[in-house]
């Protein structure tokens, strides 16, 4: 039943696709197909709006990833600079920081030891100190990333209401609510209070 609806919706959408993302991961298609399968009576306008909603969800996820990467890279940069100053090769990467945040205590101890031994270190002598400094240094960009995420959330809400005005579908709205809740949870995990360090 759902597959038939999806086929029907895709048959309408495929000749008139407006979103052209070169997404190799297939995330966009997965989101789009999920939304289209919930349409009960698909028509040109409803599939077009679903396509825009899927794009907004895709961008929202991208911006969350970007925000996380900005924070991780800024921390890695601070640690590198604390260890060896400007113009050196990158010894600490965003991946390392992610490992530490996921609970790799050995790596954290290793970084802390290097920071304590480093000469001319005016930044911080611990991983948490560098992390707090990094949060402060990229606060402006993090705020822009938050604005972008917020914008996509509002885009989804508005498009959802538009779809609602054209064709009321409770299941599709429930799916979008769940998606928004998931992103909000991801964002709260990223929250950090530099004063706590």
């Amino acid at each position, binding site marked *: 039943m759902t597959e038939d609806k999806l086929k029907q919706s895709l048959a309408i959408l495929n000749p*008139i696709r*407006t*979103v*052209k*993302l070169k997404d190799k991961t297939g995330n966009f298609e997965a989101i789009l197909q999920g939304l289209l399968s919930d349409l009960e009576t698909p*028509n*040109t*306008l409803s599939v*077009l*709006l679903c396509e*825009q909603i899927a*794009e907004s969800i895709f*961008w929202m996820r*991208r*911006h969350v990833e*970007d*925000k996380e*990467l*900005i924070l991780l*890279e800024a921390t890695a*940069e601070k640690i590198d600079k604390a260890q060896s100053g*400007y*113009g050196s090769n990158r010894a600490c990467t965003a991946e390392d920081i992610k490992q530490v945040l996921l609970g790799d205590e050995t790596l954290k101890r290793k970084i802390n030891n290097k920071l304590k031994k480093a000469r001319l270190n005016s930044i911080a002598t611990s991983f948490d100190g560098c992390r707090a400094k990094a949060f402060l240094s*990229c606060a402006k*960009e993090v705020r*822009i*990333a938050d*604005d*972008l995420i917020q*914008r996509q959330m*509002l*885009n989804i809400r*508005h*498009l959802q*209401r*538009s779809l609602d*005005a*054209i064709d009321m579908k409770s299941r599709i709205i429930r799916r979008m609510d769940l998606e928004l809740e998931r992103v909000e949870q991801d964002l709260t995990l990223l929250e950090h209070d530099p004063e706590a360090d």
Partner: protein
Amino acid sequence: MTQKQTKANKENAKKSTGPRTKSGRARSSQNSIKHGLNQALNLESDNRFIILLRLVKGDGYSHDEAYSIISAILDHRRVMDACYEQYHAPKKVFGRAETMMMQDLEGDAELGLITIGYNDTVKIARFKTRIGRINERLGSAQVQRVRRLGRLIRYQRRSIAQIHRITREMKNDKTNPFIFKL
């Protein structure tokens, strides 16, 4: 800059006539365009518009309704396509050519082809530090990307609000018994 140099610059600038051919002028007229979202939407040049208009009218919407909603969606598409382009724009790096030149010099010095004195070494080190600081200010690829996209938020707000307003009016037209269509 000395007065003599300023005068010479002005004289040289007079000799330059810029692009002469039609295609050259057309190309250079696009130089200052960053995203083009402040330009008016030209629907006639968009093939999708006529196709979508026909399909939406086929679904039972009036010409005016179909026209306004399709133009709003295509306006939103223009904004989102600009976002996509800005997101994938290449990262700005300061002094890439100069850094490569320095690396070549150091490589030649290591091979013994040239000798670099103490003063030159100090100059190279200072230059590298300066480039490093400027690039740090420019930020990583993610930071640059986020800054570029941040400038397009207001366009997204405008296009989405337009879609929302039109669909709400369409809904009101259908449900409000006091609105009569002539």
